[in-house]
């Protein structure tokens, strides 16, 4: 399993396409610009399913275009402001033709009320925050249902190391006295590192004061791989209902360009 750390190297890829149909052009644009998050077939991953799940920002061409153009502030959905109208049109056409074969009314199986109960029992809020409640150690889950596919949510619980989002990578620093400190990396450069330890303290080091820095390949979240199938399904169903508002004051990521 790719225990890898996610690296965003978003580069807007313009396309003076293309001899073939605009479906092909849309697909080519989608594969190289969007598939990284939304999956090769647009059924979701680190980004939501765009084919068979209801779209929280609306499923008309106009609303999809808006999301592509300006991104979703406070999330990893970047703004593709450099796409031409024609290119945006081709991507939308591609997406809409995919969803025709599977209507956007995906039914999430399971009992979300029971899922919420499990969330409490397992003390997920010891690391996560929903609507201002809980801990800031792990990623906020207020909007996780609108931001990820169902499969991705399930994997996040049973094999969290499969994909670790930027900003939540685990590191261990070894101090000169042999003491080891494990935490989430907030920032790092050639000479220094800043991290948040499990007690939510911010710890800051110059690397020459340390014996070493190890980048963990394992997630800092324990794998909940012994949940019963129903409990897991219910927990995922609960997470899928979490569609709180995005923080609109947050910055929009921009798909970069290349010189």
């Amino acid at each position, binding site marked *: 399993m*790719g225990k890898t750390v996610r690296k965003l*190297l978003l580069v807007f*890829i313009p396309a003076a*396409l*293309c001899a073939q149909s605009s479906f092909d052009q849309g697909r080519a644009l989608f594969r*190289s610009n969007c598939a990284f998050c939304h999956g090769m077939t647009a059924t979701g991953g680190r980004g939501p399913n765009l084919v068979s799940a209801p779209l929280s920002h609306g499923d008309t061409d106009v609303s999809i275009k808006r999301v592509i153009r300006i991104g979703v502030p406070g999330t990893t959905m970047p703004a593709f402001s450099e796409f031409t109208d024609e290119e945006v049109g081709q991507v939308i056409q591609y997406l809409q033709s995919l969803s025709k074969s599977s209507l956007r009314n995906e039914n999430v199986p399971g009992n979300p009320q029971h899922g919420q109960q499990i969330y409490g029992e397992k003390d997920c809020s010891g690391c996560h925050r929903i609507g201002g409640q809980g801990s800031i150690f792990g990623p906020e889950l207020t909007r996780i249902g609108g931001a990820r596919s169902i499969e991705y949510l399930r994997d996040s619980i049973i094999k969290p190391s499969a994909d670790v989002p930027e900003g939540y990578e685990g590191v261990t620093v070894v101090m000169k006295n042999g003491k080891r400190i494990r935490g989430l990396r907030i920032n*790092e*450069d050639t000479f220094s590192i800043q991290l948040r330890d499990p007690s939510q303290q911010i710890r800051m080091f110059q690397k020459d004061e340390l014996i070493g820095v190890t980048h963990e390949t394992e997630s800092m979240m324990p794998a909940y791989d012994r949940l019963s199938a129903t409990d897991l399904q219910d927990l995922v169903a609960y997470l899928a209902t979490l569609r709180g508002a995005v923080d609109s004051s947050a910055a929009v990521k921009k798909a970069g360009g290349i010189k």
Partner: protein
Amino acid sequence: MRLPVFVGWVCAGVLCAQPVTFERIVNSKAEPQNWLTYWGDYGAQRYRDLKQIDTSNVKNLRVEWIFQTGQSGAFETVPLVVDGIMYFTAANGFAYSVDARSGRQLWQFKYPMPDGVKLCCGTVNRGLAILGDLLFMVTPDAHVLALEARTGRLVWNREMASTDQSYGATLAPLVVKDKVIVGVSGGEFGIRGFVDAYNAKSGERAWRFYTVPAKGEPGGETWLADSWKRGGGATWMTGTYDPKLNLLYWGVGNPGPDLFGEVRKGDNLYTAGLVALDADTGKLKWHFQFTPHDTHDWDGCETPMVLDIKWKGRDRKVLAQANRNAFFYLLDRETGEFLMAKSFARQNWATEIDAKGRPVLSRNADPSPEGNRVCPGLAGAANWMPPSYNPETGWFYFPVREQCDVFFSAPPVYVEGKAYWGSMFRGQTEEKEWGLLKALDPLTGETKWDFRYYKAPWAGTMATSGGLIFSGDEDGYFMAFDAKTGKNLWKINTGNRLVTAPITYTVGGRQYVTMPSGSALLTFALP
């Protein structure tokens, strides 16, 4: 009586400037107090015999002055220093002249770019060239300008090629004899690249060499059908020059469309390669192609450093280049003969480089509709950031980028003025990038030491007889290293990614080191 025209027109402290002549640039190493041409010397060794700042005292280096340009965009300039005066450019068509001791401005120039021009390649600029009382620069819309060095007044302005066809320019011109040699950007937009020479006084074009041969010309057979017309081959970095051979060495960029080779079957000469041109006529003397039929945007525009070495017991005039494709090359610079290639970073696109210098390709390294992971990535294991050479150690010092990409492709259609990538490249890979500052023995390609950076760098290096190598990283650290051991001896966080190479000079016997960061030009000295 005939008065010498320029003598005595500029004085800094007790020192009065002589005009910069071609001979002075040829002998620039004899004037370590100055930085007379983009590379510091025609051979691009970027080495200065200055040792006031050395391995024992560099820890005391501190900021002497800061010049704020206020210009946003990458600050990629390399300043010139002539007898106490510094000249440099910034993004958006700006040029400046300052007192090199104090950073106080003497003049500022802003290129009046016509409204509404569409730029292919941003507004970055890499610096100036000087000859006599004229400075030369290029503009984002592919013009060449001559400015009066004393005032910054525009003297002449020539268009190289039209922005309607997506030409642009970012490099620092190279002055050779009475000519100003320049190149163009636009390799992602279906241009046909060229190297141009202009008469320094009049601005008249003296010659042009097309880096993509037309049908019927030698090399034209390496392009399918009429694909040469949009063949790319940008010449976006300054070349080097050997005055004895009177040859220019100019790197040639990627073929177009970048990632879709089907429409341009063949080797696609002279793209992703290097051309040796007669400096007087622009005639091709020899060429070498690092990456025939490139499909990863691996321009051949990295610094072709001029070195004289003992190769297998014989004195050899060579060129050394750490190429974007992750191989370090040695070529004979009289004939273009291939001598050696050694990989210096992770790569999975070639199983070997054969005895003639041609790569033997791996499978699944071409862009594909589903994407193929290739190392190095599109930006390459090396790029335009210049290396340096220290004659005492005999080593070659350069930044290495460890980063891979996923390459996608789909058939493109050429539309004038639009990007011609072929279609899209690079999603993103799941791996962390990192970087190295590497000291390499150019005779063997072996690593002597390296220093690891957290991110893949975009800053070049400079070597001094003080036993130091200066360079910078992506997090904004400007650093000095022991040239022998690679030990980091000094650092300062400048607060912005470093995207050019430092210079050093002296005024009044005091040694300075200058490095641009963000929109500020930082100059350091010992207290």
